[in-house]
């Protein structure tokens, strides 16, 4: 994807097994292929409300990956519009419950809460980062997109995406590793 040397990129096939998740470390570069689901603020709120009412979720999340994205509309003849990640921390409040239900992975951007990082360890799950604002290039990895729940939410509906070689980096692994903490320690200059 780029001529710059930043280490090896590993191909990952969805759904992710615990064995694969345990082999991932913060900072690993990956390319993800398979089926994933989208979900952001409004869909997560509806997940929570459904669970509170004792209902099952409109999609089975056990073993799955949620990509935090609200794509822009597709131009005719294209699969999807711009489709980069949104800030994950807004979903932090919902995430431990979904991980307890078997959710295995998320793609977003930005930091996660301590509670989420602990839940990643407890339930053997992983949080990937995609480059924020890389809407067009990331959309090229999305080969199919269909709304599977909450169509009234428009861009916040739940889409089922078929992706090929979607580029991401491990931000939080299942051992408490956090790329942002590592890089901040590595790159911060002494206060001037």
């Amino acid at each position: 994807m780029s001529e710059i040397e930043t280490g090896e990129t590993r191909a990952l096939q969805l759904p992710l097994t615990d064995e694969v998740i345990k082999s991932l470390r913060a900072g690993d570069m990956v390319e993800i292929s398979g089926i994933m689901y989208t979900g952001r603020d409004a869909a997560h709120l509806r997940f929570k409300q459904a669970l509170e009412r004792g209902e099952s979720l409109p999609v089975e999340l056990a073993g799955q990956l949620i990509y935090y994205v609200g794509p822009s509309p597709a131009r005719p003849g294209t699969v999807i519009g711009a489709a980069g990640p949104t800030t994950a921390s807004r979903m932090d409040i919902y995430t431990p419950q979904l991980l307890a239900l078997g959710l295995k992975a998320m793609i977003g951007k930005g930091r996660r809460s301590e509670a989420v990082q602990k839940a990643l360890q407890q339930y053997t799950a992983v949080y990937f980062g995609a480059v924020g604002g890389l809407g067009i290039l990331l959309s090229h990895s999305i080969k199919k997109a269909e709304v599977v729940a909450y169509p009234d939410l428009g861009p916040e509906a739940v889409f089922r995406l078929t992706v090929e070689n979607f580029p991401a980096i491990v931000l939080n692994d299942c051992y408490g590793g956090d790329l942002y903490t590592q890089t901040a320690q590595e790159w911060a200059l002494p206060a001037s």
Partner: protein
Amino acid sequence: MRTIDVNLVREAVAELCQKANYELPEDFVAALRTAREKEVSAQGRRVLTLLDQNQAEARKVQMPTCQDTGFVLVFVNVGQEVHLIGGDLYQAINAGVGEGYRSGYLRPSIVQDPLFNRANTGDNTPAVIHTRLVPGDQLTLQVLVKGAGSENCTRLAMLTPAQGILALKAFVVETVKLAGPNACPPLVVCVGVGGTADRALLLAKEASLRSVGAPHPEPLVAELEQELLELVNATGIGPQGYGGRTTALACHIERAATHIASLPVAVNLQCHAVRHQEISL
């Protein structure tokens, strides 16, 4: 007296909304490329290269660079000698936003009611509109498209005069650190100083309309901008928070008169999707 039909405003706003989302300004692209040449972190260079490729592709295929096609802010400078005809100016602006977003395949991201029923309005209206009367017979429209990832990192400090510039610097750096990767660095750090609380926030927003990295015309301010930029880049957050020397491409400061008891400082972070366009009618 010059007569301007608000339908011209509507058409112009629709076009500016699309152009802002599809084509990032040349000055920003130049700053991005300069930063890429200087960046010493491999991950940082990788991200900056990808962002340049992404903006070039968006321009080519006329698609938005980022799926968060933002909140539309319209700054309207109306010449005192302009007579507006053809209807309500604000309705025309919002009609332009709706048209631009619907026909341009831009994401509607606005809910009418922030509290009780967060239903999407479907066409990204209403815009936030700031109108100012100015001398002359021109009407100038500046459209700024602002994503929520960076907007959500906005902070305001009502500092005291005794705390001064030292506290301002600390507050700006603290804001960038708190935002970290969430605001989508490389940033343009926009700072509004003075006025009342609301004025400081508006100044900070207006600071993002400047050409990226064009130093402030007053040397003292330009010097402070440079110093803040170096402090922000010393954090090591880097492009996307993956580590590096380019946490920000520029720092822009705007000032206004303030009260003898006040030193308001507002920080409004601009993500790397710098999106603004303007036209004079």
